[in-house]
């Protein structure tokens, strides 16, 4: 406003001096031109100031509007930030909870692993250390039998025979328990293994039994898997030996076939033996479970339990499909061994 008044004052002064010039003595025409220019300039300035004032007003209003929207926006941002903070806090809590749950899970997994390892170590140590005193019992009852059979009375011979038999069986059980716990405690790392060579080794180990029983053992070309070769040989060997042991009236015929899935191979070992009733198909994989009296089939009932443990150590599964009298097919899965 002050500026506007100053321009008004200047314009008025120019107007007066101009009037003076025109009406009074016109000494210099240049002066007149100068004064005219100055007057026009002043008038123009005045007009400018008069126009600028409402412009200022508009600007001021715009600024106010801007200020308001800024405040509104700030409010909105603050609200949004608060909301976000809340969500973040919730997320942090959730994360913390999840982390804790994961920690707990890891702890339980570790605990389970440890107790499993302890259990296996226990079985190993127990069977190993039990061997020593048992060896004494077995050795001296055997020595008794060797030196005194027929020299005491009939009862004594019978008692000694039972003692020797019991000690021998217990030794077998301990050996088998040791073998079973070794699957977990003494296993080698899993590496690519050619199952054809695994089968060849199992076949060589079973050469005598295969010959004696007149068995026919045939197989598809077998794939590479990731495994512990020693254990895989034992797996094949146990399954084939079972097929020979539980054979039917005809010479044993054993076929090995495979089927590929996304990440593993499924092996099928099919025989023409006596088969297994559905009621027993789970039980046979448990340690020291037998379906027949010892007088019919020898053994402690460890073979399939070891098979199960080997397959599970490889991350696979084992099961059987069978009908009594129509043979049995044992299936197991093993992880693929070739580079994907």
């Amino acid at each position, binding site marked *: 406003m002050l500026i506007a008044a100053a321009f008004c004052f200047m314009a008025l002064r120019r107007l007066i001096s101009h009037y003076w010039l025109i009406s009074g003595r016109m000494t210099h025409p240049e002066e007149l031109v100068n004064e005219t220019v100055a007057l026009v300039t002043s008038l123009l300035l005045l007009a400018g100031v008069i126009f600028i004032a409402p412009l200022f007003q508009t600007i001021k209003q715009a600024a106010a509007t801007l200020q308001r929207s800024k405040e509104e926006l700030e409010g909105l941002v603050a609200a949004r930030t608060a909301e976000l903070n809340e969500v973040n806090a919730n997320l942090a809590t959730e994360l913390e909870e999840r982390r804790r749950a994961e920690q707990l899970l890891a702890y339980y997994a570790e605990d389970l692993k440890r107790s499993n390892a302890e259990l296996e170590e226990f079985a190993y140590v127990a069977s190993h250390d039990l*061997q*020593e005193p048992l*060896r*004494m019992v*077995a*050795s*001296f009852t*055997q*020595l008794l039998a*060797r030196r005194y059979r027929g020299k005491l009375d009939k009862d004594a011979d019978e008692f000694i025979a039972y003692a020797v038999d019991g000690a021998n069986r217990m*030794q077998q059980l301990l*050996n088998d328990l040791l073998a079973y716990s070794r699957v977990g405690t003494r296993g080698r790392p899993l590496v690519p293994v050619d199952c054809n060579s695994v089968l060849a080794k199992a076949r060589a180990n079973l050469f005598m039994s295969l010959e004696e029983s007149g068995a026919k053992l045939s197989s598809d070309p077998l794939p590479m898997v990731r495994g512990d070769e020693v254990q895989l040989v034992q797996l094949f060997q146990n399954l084939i030996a079972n097929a020979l042991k539980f054979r039917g009236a005809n010479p044993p015929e054993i076929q090995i076939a495979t089927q590929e899935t996304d990440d593993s191979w499924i092996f099928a070992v099919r025989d023409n033996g006596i088969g297994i009733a559905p009621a027993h198909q789970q039980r046979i994989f448990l340690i020291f479970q037998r379906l027949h009296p010892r007088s019919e089939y020898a053994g402690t009932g460890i073979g399939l339990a070891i098979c199960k443990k080997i397959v599970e150590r490889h991350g696979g599964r084992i099961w059987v499909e069978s009908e009594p009298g129509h043979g049995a097919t044992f299936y197991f899965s093993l992880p693929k061994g070739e580079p994907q």
Partner: protein
Amino acid sequence: MTGRRGECRPIEILMVEDNPGDVRLTLEALKEGKVRNNMHTVSDGEEALAFLRRQGAYAQAPRPDLILLDLNLPKKTGQEVLAEIKEDPDLRRIPVVILTVSEAETDILKTYNLHANCYITKPVDLERFIEVVKSIEDFWLTVVMLPPK
């Protein structure tokens, strides 16, 4: 070249074993063998070294022709006894047969590294045990030429 073959003296065997049952079984098995022998037994590692160095109660002990050494012994373990025998320039010539229940690969490796002369796992079965003792006797006391005393 005076092996023991020309001599008629019995073979001296030192058995280091803490289980009397095993000592007796070994004796019984040796009884069935054909070599005349004197078996001496000690039941821990320290006693074994005292026997070999003729210390204390063992001042009159004979020098053994063969040592049967168990690994799991009280006081000094079989490995420690073996190490001391094989470090001793006078004793290191005596063959040491490790006779143990352990089938652990680490035990086998460790004892051979300590210059054990052979490593035998005690068979569980009596018949096998007797066979093994007889084969130790046959190999070390009749097949092999031992160093002169």
